[in-house]
C-alpha cells in the first residue's frame, strides 16, 4: 500500500501540474467551482436546464465587458469607460433599430461604430496625447454616462412605444443554438477569437508585450502607441457589442443600465488573476473572474439577499480571493520547488562488504594506486573516454566539447569538436564516427573530419504524463548493436544533469531506454520507468544489451536478439556501489564503473520517503543527503552475472568519481564525471592488441575484406 502510494505519488502529479503555465489561474478556477457548488446546495433547482439556460443568457454581456476591461488592463492601462460605453451602445442600438428603424446589419454597424469612435478617443488620448489611462477613461465614463442619461430621458417615450417585428433581432435576443443561448454562442466564439488574437496574432502579442514592459517593447521595435491605441479600440468595440446584444435581449434602456459594470468588470479581471500592472493574464482568466462575480451576484439575488449586502459580499470575497491569489502567485515557485522533488520507496538489502581484507570480491585494494594521470588539470569532467584505431584518446569536457589527446604520449591536447550541452557517454560506430550522448541535447555524432551531426533528440511523448517528455533531457550512455540500432539511455525525464543528485534522492523510475534506428531515422522508447538507466553496453555476442540502474544498484540484461528478444532480467542485484558505464573487456567480460559507494544511512533514508520529503522542505538543497559519489571503483563482471574483481583507488585521492573506463591495447583508461584527469592503468594480463573498435567491427571488416579478395580472385579468374 505504502509502496503504491509512493510509486503513484500524487505529490509528483501536483508538482508537475504546478509547473504548467495553464495552472496559474487554479485558485480563481477553484473558487468558481466552489461558488457554483455552494449555490447548488443553497438554491433548489439551480442546476436545472432552464436555470442554466437563464444563467447563460444573462451572463455574456457582463463577460464581454469584462473582456474589454481585461484587454485594457493587459495593455498596461485601464478602461473605466466600458460600463458607460456599453450602456450608450445599448441605447444607440435601440434608438437606431426602434426609432430610426434601420436594418439590422446597419444597426450593428452603427453600434460598433460607436465603440470604434469612443475607443479611438480613449486610445488617441492615451496613446498619442499620453494622458493617464485612469483619468482619461474616467472622464470619458462621466461624459458618456451623462450623455446616456440625457438621451434615455429624451427618448424614453419613443423607445417604450417603439416596436419593430424582426425575427433576426428576436433570435439575437432570445434565440438558442443547440440549446445554448445565441449571445452565449457569440461569447464563446469571440472569446476564443480574442484569446487567439492576443496569443497568436502579431498585433495582439504586441499588446501583451507593451503591457509587460513598455520599454522592452519599444526596444524590440514594437509600435507602442499603435498597440495601445488598438487595445482601447478593441475594448470599446467589445463593450459596444455587449450593448448591442443587451439591447436585443432586453429591448429597454433603463437609467441603471450598465451602472457599476466597470467595477464588476475590474473585479472580474482582478479575481481572475490578471495582473493590474499589465501583460500577465489571459482572456480565460477574465472569463473565470466574470463568472465568479456573476454567479455571486446572481446567486445572492436569487437567495433574496439585500442589495447592499450583496455588494458587501462581493467586496469581501474579492478581498479574500485577491489576497490569496497574490500570495499564491508570489509563492507558487516556492511551493513548486518544495513539491517537485517526490521521493519514492526503495528497499535496499545489506550490500556485500567492501572492507579491506574481508574476502569479498568488492574488498578495497590498492590496484588503482599505480594509475598514471593523462591531461591532469587540462580536462574538466571526462565522463567517458574512447580511443580510435590510431590510439588517439577522446574524451568529453564539461564545456560541451570533445577533447582529443594525441597518441602515443597523450601530451598534446586539442579540442576535437564542440557540440555544446554536456557530452557524457561515447561510442564509436563502424565508420569511426564518435557518437556522444549529450545531456540537455540528445545524441550527436562527430565525424573523423570533425563535422558534427545530430543523431536524435526526441522520442514519442508519454500520453498519460503532464510533463512533456518527448525531448531527450538527459542522454547518458549509448552503444551500437550489430544491426546498427543505437541503444541509449535517457537517465531522467524530470531532472537535468545539474540536478542528478535530486533524481537519486527521489529514487524514482524517471528514466528510459531508447533506441534509434538509423534506417528509419526514428527513435522509440524501449523501456520506461527506469531509475537512472546508465551504462548501456551491447554484449560481446551482440544478443543483449546490458544496462545499469544507478540508483537501484543493479545490472540488467535486455535481450535484443534470439528467442528471448524483448525480455528484461536483473543480472546482478544489490551492488555495494552506484554503477555507471559498462564497457567490454578484452577477455570477453565487462568493465563496470562505480560512480560512488552506497552509504547505510542513505539506504535507510531511501526506505523512508516521508523523511526525505520533510528534508526537502526543511533544509536547503546543498545540505540534502545524497548518494555518496566522492569515492568510486571499477569492477568486472561476466555474461553470467558473476562479479570477478574490483579495482580501488584507496581514499579516492586521484579519482574522486569514476564513471567510465575503456580498455585499449593492454591499458585501462579511466574517466570521471567530476575529475580533473584521465587515468591510465597497465593491464599486464590483458590481450595487448585488443581494441574496443575491433571487438565491435573487426568481424565485419574481415568479412568485407574476404568479399573484396573474392572479387579480386574472381576478376583474376575471368
Amino acid at each position, binding site marked *: 500500500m505504502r509502496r503504491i502510494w509512493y510509486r503513484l505519488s500524487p505529490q509528483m502529479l501536483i508538482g508537475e501540474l504546478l509547473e504548467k503555465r495553464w495552472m496559474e489561474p487554479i485558485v480563481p478556477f477553484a473558487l468558481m467551482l466552489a461558488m457554483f457548488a455552494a449555490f447548488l446546495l443553497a438554491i433548489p433547482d439551480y442546476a436545472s436546464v432552464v436555470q442554466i439556460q437563464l444563467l447563460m443568457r444573462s451572463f455574456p454581456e457582463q463577460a464581454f465587458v469584462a473582456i474589454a476591461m481585461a484587454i485594457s488592463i493587459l495593455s498596461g492601462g485601464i478602461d473605466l469607460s466600458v460600463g458607460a460605453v456599453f450602456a450608450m451602445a445599448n441605447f444607440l442600438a435601440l434608438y437606431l433599430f426602434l426609432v430610426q428603424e434601420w436594418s439590422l446589419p446597419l444597426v450593428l454597424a452603427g453600434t460598433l461604430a460607436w465603440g470604434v469612435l469612443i475607443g479611438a478617443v480613449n486610445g488617441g488620448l492615451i496613446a498619442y496625447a499620453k494622458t493617464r489611462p485612469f483619468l482619461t477613461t474616467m472622464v470619458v465614463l462621466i461624459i458618456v454616462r451623462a450623455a446616456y442619461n440625457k438621451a434615455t430621458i429624451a427618448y424614453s417615450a419613443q423607445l417604450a412605444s417603439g416596436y419593430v417585428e424582426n425575427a433576426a433581432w428576436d433570435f439575437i435576443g432570445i434565440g438558442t443554438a443547440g440549446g445554448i443561448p445565441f449571445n452565449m454562442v457569440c461569447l464563446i466564439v469571440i472569446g476564443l477569437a480574442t484569446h487567439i488574437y492576443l496569443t497568436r496574432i502579431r498585433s495582439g502579442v504586441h499588446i501583451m508585450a507593451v503591457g509587460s514592459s513598455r520599454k522592452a517593447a519599444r526596444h524590440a521595435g514594437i509600435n507602442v502607441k499603435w498597440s495601445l491605441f488598438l487595445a482601447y479600440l478593441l475594448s470599446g468595440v467589445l463593450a459596444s457589442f455587449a450593448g448591442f446584444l443587451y439591447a436585443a435581449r432586453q429591448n429597454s434602456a433603463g437609467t441603471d443600465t450598465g451602472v457599476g459594470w466597470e467595477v464588476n468588470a475590474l473585479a472580474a479581471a482582478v479575481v481572475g488573476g490578471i495582473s493590474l500592472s499589465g501583460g500577465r493574464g489571459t482572456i480565460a482568466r477574465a472569463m473565470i473572474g466574470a463568472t465568479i462575480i456573476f454567479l455571486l451576484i446572481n446567486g445572492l439575488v436569487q437567495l433574496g439577499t439585500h442589495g447592499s449586502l450583496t455588494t458587501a459580499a462581493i467586496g469581501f470575497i474579492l478581498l479574500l480571493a485577491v489576497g490569496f491569489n497574490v500570495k499564491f502567485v508570489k509563492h507558487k515557485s516556492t511551493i513548486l520547488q518544495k513539491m517537485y522533488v517526490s521521493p519514492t520507496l526503495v528497499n535496499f538489502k545489506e550490500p556485500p562488504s567492501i572492507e579491506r581484507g574481508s574476502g569479498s570480491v568488492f574488498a578495497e585494494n590498492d590496484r588503482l594506486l599505480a594509475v598514471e594521470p593523462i591531461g591532469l588539470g587540462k580536462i574538466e569532467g571526462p565522463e567517458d573516454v574512447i580511443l580510435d584505431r590510431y590510439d588517439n584518446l577522446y574524451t568529453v569536457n564539461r564545456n560541451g566539447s570533445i577533447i582529443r589527446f594525441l597518441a602515443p604520449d597523450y601530451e598534446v591536447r586539442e579540442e576535437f569538436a564542440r557540440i555544446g550541452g554536456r557530452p557524457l557517454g561515447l561510442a564509436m560506430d563502424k565508420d569511426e564516427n564518435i557518437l556522444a550522448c549529450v545531456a540537455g541535447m540528445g545524441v550527436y555524432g562527430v565525424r573523423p573530419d570533425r563535422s558534427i551531426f545530430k543523431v536524435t533528440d526526441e522520442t514519442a511523448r508519454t500520453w498519460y504524463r503532464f510533463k512533456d517528455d518527448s525531448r531527450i533531457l538527459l542522454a547518458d550512455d549509448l552503444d551500437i548493436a550489430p544491426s546498427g540500432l543505437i541503444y541509449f539511455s535517457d537517465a531522467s525525464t524530470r531532472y537535468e544533469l545539474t540536478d542528478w543528485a535530486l533524481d537519486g534522492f527521489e529514487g524514482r523510475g524517471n528514466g528510459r531506454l531508447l533506441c534509434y534506428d538509423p534506417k528509419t531515422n526514428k527513435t522509440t522508447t524501449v523501456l520506461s520507468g527506469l531509475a537512472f538507466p546508465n551504462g548501456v553496453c551491447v554484449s560481446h555476442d551482440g544478443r543483449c544489451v546490458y544496462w545499469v540502474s544507478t540508483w537501484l544498484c543493479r545490472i540488467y540484461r535486455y535481450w535484443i536478439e534470439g528467442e528471448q528478444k524483448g525480455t528484461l532480467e536483473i543480472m546482478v542485484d544489490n551492488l555495494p556501489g552506484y554503477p555507471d558505464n559498462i564497457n567490454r573487456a578484452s577477455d570477453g567480460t565487462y568493465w563496470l564503473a562505480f560512480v560512488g559507494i552506497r552509504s547505510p544511512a542513505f539506504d535507510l533514508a531511501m526506505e523512508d520517503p516521508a523523511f526525505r520529503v520533510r528534508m526537502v522542505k526543511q533544509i536547503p538543497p546543498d545540505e540534502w543527503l545524497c548518494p555518496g559519489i566522492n569515492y568510486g571503483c571499477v569492477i568486472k563482471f561476466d555474461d553470467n552475472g558473476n562479479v570477478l574483481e574490483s579495482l580501488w583507488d584507496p581514499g579516492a585521492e586521484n579519482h574522486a*568519481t569514476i564513471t567510465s573506463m575503456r580498455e585499449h591495447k593492454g591499458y585501462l583508461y579511466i574517466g570521471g564525471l567530476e575529475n580533473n584527469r584521465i587515468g591510465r592503468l597497465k593491464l599486464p594480463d590483458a590481450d595487448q592488441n585488443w581494441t574496443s573498435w575491433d571487438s565491435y567491427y573487426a568481424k565485419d571488416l574481415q568479412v568485407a575484406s574476404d568479399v573484396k579478395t573474392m572479387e579480386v580472385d574472381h576478376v583474376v579468374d575471368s
Partner: protein
Amino acid sequence: MSLIRDILDRVFFPNRDVHAISSLDGGFSPNRRLDDAEIIADLPGVNGVCIGENGSVYASSGNQIVCWPNGDFLKSSTFAELDALVGSLATHPDGRVFAAVSGRGIVALNGEGQITGRLEIVGDTPLECVTAIAVLPDGSVAITDGSRHYAVEGWLQDLMEKRIGSGRLVLCNADLLSARVVCDGLSWPAGIATASDALTLLVTEAWTHRLLSIVVDTGAQTVLVKNFAAYPGRITPSSSGGFWIAFFAMRTQLIEFVLREDAFRNRMMRSVAPDLWIGPSLGDHFDYREPTQIGRIKKLGIQKPWAPPRSYGLVARIDAAGTAVESLHSRVSGTTHGIMDIADTGGQLIVASRGNGKLVKIELERGKAS
C-alpha cells in the same frame, strides 16, 4: 505556522536554542589559520593538552600522557601510562598533573608521573565521563562530567539519543576530596574555565551549543552565549584576554534535522554503525560509506571548503561577554579537524587536532590583545 512557533518559543523559552544555526561571520569569519599552523607533533588520538609550571607541555593520546619538557618540541617523553583512555589534562600550581580517565574519573599525578590521588565517584554516581578539568585560583579542582549514560567515547551516542541532560559540574579540593555537585542536569558540559572574577565558572554545554556562567557557591546559571554554530568543547583563558574555546564539530542543518526526526534517528542508531551515522564527526576516521550531502560532492577532484562539514576545525577567542573576537579555522577541505583542546603558552597557542592526530602551534600576535 513556524513563525508563530518561533515567536512563542522566544517568549516562553528565551534560553532555548533557536532553530537556525548562526552563520560563521563576525569573529567567526572563516580563515585557514589552523591549516597554516606549524605541526609540532603527530599524535594519533590526541585529546587533552595543557601547560605545566615550567613551560612543559603535556598532551594525552590513547592511554598515554606525553610530555615535552620546558616547551622544547624536539624531544618528547612518555610522562605516564594509565589503564584507560586519557582525556582532559590540567596542571596544579604545586606541580601535579590531573588527568581525566575515561570510565574511571580523574587521577592526580606527581612530577614523576605516579598516581597520587583519585576521584572516581561523586555522591552515589560514578564519575565515568570526565570531559574537562580546571584548577581554580584557590587550588580546588572543578570537573565537568558529560553524561551519566556514556563514557567520553560515547559522545556521539549521547548526542543522538537526545536524552535530558545528565551532566554535572563537580567541585573538590586540591587533594580530590570532599567532592560536591555544583550543578546537575547539564547537556554534555564539555569545557570549564575560571572566569576573571574567580567566583564564577564558565562552562560550555555542547549539546545545547551554549556557554554558561555558573556561580561556584550557589550553582546559579546564566547563559552567556546561546547559539554557537558548532559544538563547544574545552575552554581556557587566553593570554590576550578573554577565553579560547575549542569547537570539536560543526552543527549542520542536516544533523539538526535528523535530531528532530526521532523515528529515523532511532532506526539509524539501531541498524547503522555509529561511524556512518548522519551526525558530527571528529574527522578521525575515513570510510567510503559515510553519508554525503549534495554540497560536499567534489568538483574536479576538489573538496569545496564551504561544503556542509562532517568534521571541521574551529577555535575561537571570546571576550568576557561571550562575543567572538577572533577565530582559527580548518575548513571542510582542511586537515586540522576535530579540535579537542587548546593551550595558551603566552605567546603561542597549542591546538590538539583529534581528527588529524596532531598538535599544531600558532604564534599569537601580541599586538592584537584587547
